[in-house]
């Protein structure tokens, strides 16, 4: 019966592949059917995986299909970790697919999107259930190439082709690193099945090499600083439902790869690596949110927030690795649960926000926030749902973002139990980075929501916008509902995650419910009830009660006399909407504080002479340091190398023979010395 579960999941994946073929043959008229059926298949995957987790995720299910490499076959397996990521892939995938039913009609060239969308979903599901390196990498590459094609769907927009080029280069590099990582894990004569890798784990510097390669490979896909620079280019360039998948789900699949290698295949990871991973996460979180604050394109802003949230997740993973290395297994389970819970949460609210940005784009054909404004009056449903997503990503109760970040901070606050002195100092530093980035994220979403939806429209398009159809509102509502549900009852997610924590951290989630009866589902109590506890439901009740009381009090006590007065009348009666706060002016204080170093921000003010009628100009120039410090030198190196290696193409026969002779001599010498 249990095997049936894995087979059903595979059948759903196969159905997605079949849908891609249908889309290819039938073309755009079949759009509604393809998206609808993709949604059904994704929902089925999510439901089956949830079923497996809810049943306690007993023994892992394994299946070997006679496909792929002849001596290896295609190993597929479903364990607790895979099931959890299948839930994420399926849930957000289903919402994005339903959204596609409505949004697909608004895309310029639907035939460029339709066949690759189901393939993309199928590949992400397959990566998660793959149980050998070959199947894993094949699915991973399919995922990259499918998403690359989807990024190229809007190829007529300026900048898209460059974004796609940068993306495919980074994706290839990442895959190469993962390929080498699996090579190290398999060893010289090992097999590429994950089960064999587990049986024969690398030790010493080989394990370190595998970890570093996994960090480079999966980290570049997930968007870890400094390998993130492709992400804010590629994610926004795709159609919005694809952006939601890329940011909400594909980065999570990368996190899956990281967790699979770090917690499962390598096994023993030293605390030094835990510290490094944690620090990388903290830096990614802070830089991601700082860059996000500087953006004035709504989708680019959301993409940079993905970098931030990946940083939070990775910091949690690093913390879990450190706790595990120190033997503090319950704390490791806590940190791991927090990170994996945030994986789901980020998928939910980032999907919601990208779909909301898609609605704004459909209604106004505008992504530039400084040309939007006042949309709350014309798109009330989208505005309300976008607000839910903004609150959730800003980690405010009672939504899900708060629950997982709260759990992460519970783990950080217990960092002083670590016996290693460097970690005792590092953990609070990372905690500070995460706290700072959480506060900045809230500021950033005040800006994103305020500039886009509040105030008055800054352009004709924003003034004329109207609400989008219900097919493009309901998926957002579903995601918002899930954000609220997991925020109110976080214990449900934690319960689903307990088999994962037990398998990978070596201990179950440390729930302390002694003393408080029947509190298991209501209160989230890690470690000690005297120390910390959280109940989303109670907070929700409190917030609702206080708000209701506040509204009641205002209506009862305040004067209800109607007054009409001109708005924006600070000495300038017919103010243009351009006098409103823009996104850049909102971010200016932060740009002043961090700008000169982190962004290389330069402000140019051009004041005309008195009597000159030219307008004064104010320009801000911002750079992503990763470009200047990492990508530009690498690019120069490659250009240099290719220029000089080019001469190898034009050698004489005698020179070629000499090189071959030299190579032969070197190899023979190696054999003579080693053998």
């Amino acid at each position, binding site marked *: 019966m249990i095997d049936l579960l894995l087979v059903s999941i595979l059948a759903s994946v196969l159905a997605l592949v079949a849908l891609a073929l249908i889309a290819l043959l039938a073309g755009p008229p079949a759009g509604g059917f393809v998206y609808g059926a993709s949604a059904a298949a994704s929902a089925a995957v999510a439901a089956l995986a949830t079923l497996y987790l809810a049943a306690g995720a007993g023994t892992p299910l394994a299946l070997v299909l006679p496909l792929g490499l002849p001596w290896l076959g295609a190993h597929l397996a479903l364990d607790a970790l895979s099931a959890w990521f299948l839930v994420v892939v399926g849930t957000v995938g289903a919402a994005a697919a339903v959204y596609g039913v409505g949004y697909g009609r608004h895309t310029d060239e639907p035939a460029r999107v339709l066949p690759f969308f189901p393939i993309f979903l199928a590949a992400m599901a397959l990566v998660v259930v793959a149980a050998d390196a070959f199947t894993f990498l094949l699915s991973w590459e399919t995922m990259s190439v499918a998403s690359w094609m989807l990024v190229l769907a809007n190829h007529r927009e300026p900048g898209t082709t460059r974004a796609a080029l940068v993306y495919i280069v980074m994706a290839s590099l990442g895959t190469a690193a993962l390929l080498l990582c699996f090579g190290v894990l398999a060893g010289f004569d090992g097999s590429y099945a994950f089960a064999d890798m587990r049986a024969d784990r690398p030790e010493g510097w080989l394990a370190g090499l595998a970890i570093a390669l996994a960090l480079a490979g999966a980290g570049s896909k997930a968007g870890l600083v400094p390998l993130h620079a492709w992400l804010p280019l590629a994610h926004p360039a795709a159609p919005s439902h694809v952006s939601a998948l890329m940011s909400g789900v594909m980065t999570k699949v990368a996190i899956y790869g990281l967790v699979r290698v770090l917690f499962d295949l390598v096994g023993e990871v030293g605390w030094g690596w835990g510290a490094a991973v944690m620090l990388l996460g903290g830096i990614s979180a802070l830089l991601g949110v700082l860059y996000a604050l500087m953006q004035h394109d709504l989708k680019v802003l959301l993409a940079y927030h993905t970098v931030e949230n990946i940083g939070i997740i990775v910091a949690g993973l690093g913390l879990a690795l450190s706790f595990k290395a120190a033997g503090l297994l319950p704390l490791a389970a806590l940190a791991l649960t927090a990170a994996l819970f945030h994986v789901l949460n980020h998928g939910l609210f980032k999907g919601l926000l990208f779909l909301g940005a898609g609605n704004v784009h459909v209604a106004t054909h505008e992504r530039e926030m400084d040309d939007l404004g006042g949309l709350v009056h014309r798109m009330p449903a989208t505005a309300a749902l976008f607000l839910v997503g903004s609150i959730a990503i800003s980690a405010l109760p009672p939504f899900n973002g708060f629950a997982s970040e709260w759990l992460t901070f519970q783990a950080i606050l217990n960092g002083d139990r670590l016996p290693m002195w460097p970690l005792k100092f590092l953990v609070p530093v990372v905690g500070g980075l995460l706290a700072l980035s959480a506060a900045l994220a809230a500021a950033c979403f005040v800006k994103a929501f305020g500039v886009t939806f509040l105030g008055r429209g800054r352009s004709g398009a924003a003034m004329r916008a109207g609400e989008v159809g219900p097919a493009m509102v309901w998926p957002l509502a579903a995601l918002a509902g899930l954000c609220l549900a997991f925020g109110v009852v976080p214990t449900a997610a934690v319960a689903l995650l307990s088999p994962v924590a037990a398998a990978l951290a070596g201990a179950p989630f440390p729930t302390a419910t002694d003393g408080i009866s029947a509190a298991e589902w209501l209160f989230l109590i890690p470690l000690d009830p005297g120390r910390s506890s959280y109940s989303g439901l109670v907070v929700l009740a409190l917030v609702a009660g206080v708000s209701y009381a506040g509204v009641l009090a205002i209506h009862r006590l305040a004067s209800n006399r109607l007054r009409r007065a001109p708005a924006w009348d600070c000495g300038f009666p017919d103010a243009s909407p351009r006098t409103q706060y823009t996104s850049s002016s909102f971010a200016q204080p932060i740009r002043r504080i961090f700008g000169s170093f982190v962004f290389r921000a330069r402000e140019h003010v051009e004041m005309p002479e008195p009597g000159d009628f030219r307008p004064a100009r104010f320009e801000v120039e911002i750079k992503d340091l990763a470009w200047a410090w990492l990508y530009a030198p690498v690019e120069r190196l490659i250009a240099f190398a290719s220029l000089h290696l080019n001469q190898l193409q034009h050698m004489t026969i*005698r020179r070629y023979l000499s090189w071959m002779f030299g190579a032969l001599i070197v190899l*023979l010498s190696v054999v003579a010395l080693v053998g």
Partner: protein
Amino acid sequence: MLRGLEFDIAHLFSSSVLILSFGLLYQRRLFGVLQIYALQALAVACAAAWQAYAQAYPQLYVTAAIALVFKAIVIPVAFHHIVLRLHIHREIETVVGVNMTLLFGVALVALSILLVLPMTTTSGNLTRENLALALSVLLLGLLMMISRRNAVSQVIGFLSLENGLILAAIGVKGMPFVVEMSVAFSVLVAFIVFGMFFFRIRERFDTLDVHYLEAFRGERH
């Protein structure tokens, strides 16, 4: 009566092949190169014949005969003819750094011995020494190919490399005869092709110094 000496005599022949390889590296006159090559082929033929006797493996006599007829007689005579027809018999090649090349050749022999002897501890002495010498001859042939600029000398380097292959093949017990046959045949084909090329090159460029060919490609080098 020679049973006690089989190792020494096999060694003698193989070593003469190697010594003659060094001679090839040193010799600058084309006729001299051809004569040394003929001598080397003769030594290979003797080595094959001796192995046929020592291993009591009569098929190797055929190998010896092929080496003697084709490589010691037909090919050198044909080359002699070609060189005369091309009027390059008086040319002295300008080979730079002969001493360095010879020293490098000695290093290659040392490398071969270091490589082969530890790897073949389970084989008999005959095979071991023979393989080491054969590998050295092979590498020296390659070295000659890259250190010379005249096309004839380069081809002779290639042919001497092939002598090394034969030397290795006859020293190993039970090597299928068809291998030696095919190697001999391929050398013959190579010889014909090379011979034709010499005339074509000469026709076009008035020289057999491949240096001029390189310049003619119109590219930097």
